[in-house]
């Protein structure tokens, strides 16, 4: 039962990964008992499953995902939200207003206007309908401070790290609040601009080097060095 | 759109083809019955109408005079246009030629041009100044599948009965003489379109078959049995082996049609 790649090998779409008694995992497909890669990424096996961790993919919503989106349009009874996925999402007015919605008197653009950012949860999504969002849980809602950056969605797990170790370290050293949208949009809120930029630089570095080894050490080093520089500047 | 096939029908077509048969009783390599009527539009210099099953295509040939292209001063001009007239199908909309009518025109053009069907060197009235310009207009009247083969056959038939006015040069001026001469033809290319359905090759797809096909391939064959144009179409694929098989089928069918039409 052959496997045709080495662990964490960089594979391209159409590359033959395995033949025989294997199951197609993430970013792979099977045809006539053979498993092929469907995206560029790093190939790996998990028991009998062949997976490819994609280095480049777009975000497809799943119910329960926490995402960060931009209001695109104020509609009749809700808002259209860009969550950086092939489908625009909908946020109903009734979800945001804690009371029944009155179209004649409620001015939706005053609650949320085009161009504003929100943190929301994907309430529902299926093949036939655009994703529906909800903000009616604690921690969700309009974003008023901080900076936004984008990360390829497939790299978000690497930014989080094992049991959240990587993201916790960044938060601790920079003192920033960081919300990682599953859709690859990240919100960084710090006490000052330098802290925010340091956090963003660290995250960018993780995205660029996610498929290499020794990354955790290099990030730790980067944060340590930059923080030290900041302290020096303060003394001067 | 009323032209969408139900899943039940799609399945039925697939099952029959797996068993080597088609909805209308043909084998996988049979053409539908066809008839060609020539010279029915007197105002046109040449015309022909084909009925291939229920597919109905009328081709008119207009011959005018004009300037040759600067890089071919001793050749006449041939141009092919196709109209998917709205009355031919619920899916055709009025408007400028879309990609389907442009592709159809260019496939028909390629077969005629590459086989040198029309002797363009005999279309010169005055070298570099005045030549015959042959307009071939394909008019699809009813779409029941395989517009390519129907249009290509009708186009060649229209060209064979086309007549051009006689000209002569008198005192440096071009003047018309009485009478007409037949358009000089050197070859009669025949285009055969083969569809791939459930991995089987099916000749002359009828409209419902076109809606379930994976891909199609059209090959134009000249009098000598050589291939002068090929176009693979639609969003599927063929293996190289299937293409070679298709080319054999195309040659066979072209020879049959050539015999039937006495071309």
């Amino acid at each position, binding site marked *: 039962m052959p496997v045709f790649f080495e662990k964490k090998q960089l594979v391209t779409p*159409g*590359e033959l990964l395995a033949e025989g008694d294997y199951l197609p995992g993430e970013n792979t497909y099977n045809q006539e008992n053979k498993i092929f890669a469907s995206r*560029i990424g790093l190939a790996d096996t998990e028991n009998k499953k062949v997976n490819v961790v994609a280095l480049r993919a*777009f975000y497809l919503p799943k119910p329960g995902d926490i995402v960060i989106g931009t209001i695109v349009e104020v509609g009749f009874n809700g808002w259209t939200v860009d969550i950086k996925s092939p489908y625009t999402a909908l946020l109903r007015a009734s979800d945001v207003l804690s009371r029944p919605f009155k179209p004649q008197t409620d001015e939706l653009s005053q609650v949320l206007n085009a161009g504003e950012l929100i943190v929301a949860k994907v309430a529902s999504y299926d093949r036939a309908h655009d994703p529906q969002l909800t903000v009616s849980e604690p921690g969700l809602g309009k974003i008023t401070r901080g900076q936004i950056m984008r990360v390829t969605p497939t790299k978000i797990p690497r930014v989080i790290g094992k049991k959240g170790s990587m993201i916790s370290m960044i938060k601790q050293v920079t003192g920033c609040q960081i919300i990682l949208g599953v859709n690859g949009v990240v919100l960084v809120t710090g006490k000052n601009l330098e802290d925010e930029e340091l956090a963003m630089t660290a995250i960018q570095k993780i995205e660029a*080097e996610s498929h290499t080894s020794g990354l955790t050490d290099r990030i730790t080093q980067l944060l340590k060095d930059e923080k030290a520089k900041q302290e020096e500047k303060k003394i001067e | 759109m009323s032209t969408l096939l139900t899943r039940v029908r799609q399945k039925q077509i697939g099952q029959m083809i797996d068993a080597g048969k088609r909805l209308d009783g043909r084998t996988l390599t049979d053409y539908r019955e066809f008839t060609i009527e020539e010279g029915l539009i007197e105002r046109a210099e040449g015309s022909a109408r084909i009925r291939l099953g229920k597919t109905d295509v009328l081709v008119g040939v207009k011959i005018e005079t004009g300037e040759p292209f600067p890089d071919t001063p001793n050749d006449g001009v041939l141009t092919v246009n196709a109209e998917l007239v709205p009355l031919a199908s619920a899916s055709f909309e009025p408007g400028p030629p879309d990609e389907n009518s442009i592709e159809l025109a260019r496939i028909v053009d390629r077969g005629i041009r590459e086989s040198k069907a029309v002797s363009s060197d005999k279309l010169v009235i005055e070298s570099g100044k005045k030549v015959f310009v042959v307009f071939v207009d394909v008019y699809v009247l009813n779409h029941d599948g395989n517009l390519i083969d129907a249009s290509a056959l009708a186009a060649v038939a229209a060209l064979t009965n086309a007549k051009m006015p006689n000209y002569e040069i008198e005192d440096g001026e071009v003047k018309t003489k009485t009478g007409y001469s037949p358009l000089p033809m050197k070859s009669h290319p025949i285009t055969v379109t083969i569809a791939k359905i459930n991995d089987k090759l099916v000749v002359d797809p009828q409209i419902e078959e076109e809606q379930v096909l994976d891909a199609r391939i059209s090959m134009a064959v000249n009098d000598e049995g050589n291939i002068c144009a090929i176009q693979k179409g639609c969003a599927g694929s063929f293996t190289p082996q299937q293409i*070679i098989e298709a080319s054999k089928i195309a040659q066979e069918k072209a020879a049959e049609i050539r015999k039937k039409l006495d071309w």
Partner: protein
Amino acid sequence: MSEKPEKLIDKKGIRLDGRKADELRPLKIEVGVLPNADGSAYIEHGKNKILVGVFGPREMHPKHLSQSDRMVIRCRYHMAPFSVQERKSPAPSRREVELSKVIRESLEPSVFVDLYPRSGIDVFIEVLQADGGTRCASITAASLAIADAGIPLRDLVVACAAGKIDDTVVLDLYDAEDKLGVADVPVAYMPNLNAVTLLQMDGVLTPKEFENAMNMAIDGCKKIYPIQKEALRAKYMAAREELKEEVEE
């Protein structure tokens, strides 16, 4: 107007540009070159210079063009006015319309269109300089741009043409050979699936010559495929190389 050369291939089997019958023109491909596109690629194949940008998957505009059960692929093949010897009008020609269609049909078999209903992708091909075989080079680059956009594919699509000049079947015709030669056979191919997704031919070939030309074009595709894959890999390996340098210093 330059004179027509007497022979396109000499007795020793050398063509006017110095190549042998089965030799490809030089090829250079780069992936991820347009910052605003979701995916992009640039190819130089002989004197051809072609840039491809892909947007999507995204919602289709106008909405009525979308399909409820699958993704729609739109493709626009366009030549810049300065790309050819005699300035070409920027308006789409009939040739460009046909090529846009056949190129789309060559790429579509590689895309899992059923996975993303109601969405669409736009493939924009701009030919900046043309010297024969632009549709093939466009397909090779477009497939990379689609992969670069993170769209799942069954395989990359690679394309190459073969044809006949004088009495010889040759690989990868450039413009002069296409115009003055006997036949041209462009082929697009998915190597891992042995699937031909584009096949055209103009000229006159015996059935045997056609078979030889098609097989030669497929061999050409197989030669280009590793270069195509490498261009895709190179974009993602760049970080790795930078890293190696850092560590060595």
